[in-house]
């Protein structure tokens, strides 16, 4: 009830036009934190004011006419129907305004397009439904998906209030971290369908096209946390692949890089030891909820006609090799998780599906088995099809 009251209070305040002081909503485009985003904001405000002025003039004339040139006030209709001078005037003036508008727009456009001489290059790959970040200069690489809390709250009938979740739908497990005042070039691509990478504070969005690489750049002037979302419809969970970028001072950024590298090493070495089955299943359950549940559902029942059920599935309850192949390499809409997860997570999630979700196969697979398979996947393929 408290929430309803709050909302009505907001609505009421907004009607009075005084809500702005205490509400979180925004009415206008953010100015953003890059020079380009400020330029874009200025262009936006310029064209907006031009439109407002034209609108006031044009509608002013119209409403004057509507008020004074009515039959009910006894106005007699005149019968003129042409005036070449006036018509010429209202063709030429708008053209001039457009030319004036086009000049700063072109300037900003050219600046945005200049991705030369970057300090850092980060490859951004869109997946259904997460982002992959690849720091091409330092080798740091990770996936970033919706945080667990939002993910729980967003389910149909979850019973969790969105307002109680911190940054509902705009929070991720692994944020992208960049240094401030460095020119960062993004190479944008996708692995399955179209996506678009959009952080409003940076002033642009750009499509991630599978099989092609787009580029764009930022140079963030202010440390901070900047949030965005996928902007190109990419399937059912399009609304659930947020972007979080943390801009840090150079020293802090370098420290973060080192931490990330150490973390990657630790994860890699975890694949070199023997895991107990209970350990695998426990870990696998987490991995399943984060990566598999959005299609196959939390209980493994899938969505009839679209996403197959895993509970009782012939692949999952069949030979181990078959499932390993399916998970690593994908098929159809099922993405290739060999490219997304590490050996420990893969072994864990495969073991979990065979022993959870009401399946009771009993066997499990060790990270040590998966590791060489992953290594083989990253080898360049032989051109033997020709």
């Amino acid at each position, binding site marked *: 009830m408290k929430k309803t009251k709050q909302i009505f209070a907001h609505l009421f305040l907004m009607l009075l036009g005084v809500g702005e002081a205490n509400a979180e909503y925004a009415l206008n485009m953010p100015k953003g934190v890059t020079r380009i985003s400020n330029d874009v904001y200025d262009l936006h405000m310029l064209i907006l004011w031009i439109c407002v002025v034209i609108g006031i003039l044009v509608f002013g004339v119209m409403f004057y006419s509507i008020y004074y040139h009515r039959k009910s006030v006894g106005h007699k209709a005149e019968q003129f129907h042409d005036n070449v001078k006036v018509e010429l005037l209202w063709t030429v003036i708008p053209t001039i305004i457009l030319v004036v508008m086009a000049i700063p727009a072109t300037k900003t456009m050219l600046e945005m397009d200049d991705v030369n001489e970057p300090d850092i290059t980060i490859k951004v790959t869109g997946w259904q439904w997460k982002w992959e970040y690849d720091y091409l200069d330092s080798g740091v690489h990770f996936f970033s998906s919706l945080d667990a809390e939002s993910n729980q709250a967003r389910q149909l009938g979850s019973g969790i209030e969105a307002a109680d979740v911190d940054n509902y739908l705009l929070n991720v497990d692994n944020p992208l971290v960049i240094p401030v005042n460095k020119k960062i070039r993004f190479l944008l691509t996708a692995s399955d369908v179209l996506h678009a990478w959009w952080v409003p504070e940076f002033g642009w969005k750009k499509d991630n096209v599978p099989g092609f690489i787009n580029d764009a750049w930022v140079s963030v002037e202010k440390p901070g946390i900047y949030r965005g*979302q996928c902007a190109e419809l990419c399937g059912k969970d*399009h609304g659930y692949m947020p972007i979080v970028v943390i801009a840090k001072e150079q020293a802090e950024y370098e420290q973060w890089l080192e931490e990330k590298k150490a973390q990657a090493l630790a994860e890699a070495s975890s694949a070199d030891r023997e895991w107990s089955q209970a350990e695998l299943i426990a870990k696998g359950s987490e991995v399943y909820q984060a990566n598999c549940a959005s299609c196959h559902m939390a209980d493994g029942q899938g969505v009839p006609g679209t996403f197959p059920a895993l509970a009782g599935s012939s692949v999952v309850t069949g030979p181990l090799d078959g499932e390993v192949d399916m998970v690593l390499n994908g098929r159809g809409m099922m993405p290739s998780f060999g490219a997304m997860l590490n050996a420990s997570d893969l072994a864990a999630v495969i073991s979990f599906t065979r022993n959870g979700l009401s399946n009771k196969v009993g066997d499990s697979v060790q990270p040590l088995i998966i590791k060489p398979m992953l290594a083989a996947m990253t080898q360049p393929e032989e051109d033997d099809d020709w």
Partner: protein
Amino acid sequence: MSAVTSAHDEHDDHGPKKGFMRWLTTTNHKDIGTMYLVFALVMFFVGGAMALVIRAELFEPGLQFVNPQFFNSMTTMHALIMIFGAVMPAFAGFANWMIPMMIGAPDMALPRMNNMSFWLLVAGGVLLFSTLFMEGGAPAAGWTMYPPLVLQTGNSLPFAIFSIHLLGVSSIMAAINIVATIFNMRAPGMDLMKMPMFVWTWLITGFLLIAVMPVFAGAVTMLLTDRFFETSFFDAAGGGDPVLYQHIFWFFGHPEVYILILPTFGLASTIIPVFARKPLFGYHSMVYATVGIAFLSFVVWAHHMFTVGMPIAGELFFMYATMLVAVPTGVKVFNWIATMWKGAMTFETPMLFTVAFVVLFTMGGFSGLMLAIAPADFQYHDSYFIVAHFHYVLVPGTVFMIIAGTYYWLPKWTGHRYDEKLAKVHFWMSTISVNVLFFPQHFLGLAGMPRRIPDYAVQFAEFNMISSVGGFLFGFSQLIFLYIIIKTIRGGKKATGEVWEGAKKHGLEWTLPSPAPYHTFEKPPKIK
């Protein structure tokens, strides 16, 4: 004109058949026009119900009613049904009913094809609607059907594509028929430059349809072969390009946008002079502006794709070309206002809707101008700002003029005056609620809410709630429209032939009795 009426009376031996067969087999332009209009009205409510599902889910953050996949089906089907099921058939209905009467022709040039194009529309519409009940659900990749996502559609994909083929064939046939009628069936003396603006805009719309519907059919056929016959038009792994689809689609899609708006311009140019009791200002420049807009529509398509990663030269070309559209569109708006200027205006419901159209469509035009600025579009693109923009031009733009046209000609069609008081209630309810519905969406888009999402972050909650309230008000206000139409068909004050004061000077249709007889202008009228 009494000569025409009596001439008709002598030939009254082949009136309409009785019952269902009348409608199934009719070749009469008025019957077919009526069927188009009824079909459009039904689809307007079907598509509207889908919009209400969307607005209900977006009423507050969190998922309350539908799962995300079904939500996406709703946005996709809402658009397809509104565009191909409601707006285009409504215009075809107006064209069928009015163009022969406006140019002094006895019927359409190709009456049997006219019947076929209507019934193909029904077949296509039913097929499209049936995809909702198929395994895997209705198409959910947006009405633009971008690959690769659309190729993930379940069993409904080939059915949706076939229904688009049917709807396309139906539209092309209707367009050919209208163009042929306008070129061949005009009464002697009805020169091209004397034609009513509605006829002019439909002539140009007809050419646009004939030019671009096959392009769309080609694009979706390529999707079909990519999915089922191992081609790779849009698959980079096979040497194709997903962006190629977008170029083909929008080469159709942008002229399509003007297909949805040009007849609307014609309606405004028809209605304003009648209620201002003045001739249309700048008739010639109106015709040239329409031709100009139609021409530009073929060279601006990639402004729907500014963020797709085009070369800078492409971005700049499409930005400049798009900005140019503002010039002829501006000419039209200025001409309408100059037509009102120093008139003797009255504000019956058709005029009220037309005035609202001029204001609110122009607001959609302003946001269109903003969207044309490519660097700013990098922010607006695929956000709620664009949703607000195209709904402003399509709802208080196109749909308002369809409503205005209906009120304008309803007495001519039925022979009865509609309930003016209730119609004004309908007008005020619609105009207020449509702004409550769509205006806050500008703010949402600017604040960073992407389109086509079933759930959103909490800072978007207030404006979504306001928008949803407006949506439900707007939706239920249209029930008044339905009630007025049914009431007017069943009875009411008898309408004169002229209906609107002094209308005889503004169009041949007002020289006929109301309701218009089953056959009209069997002998061509004399045009001064």
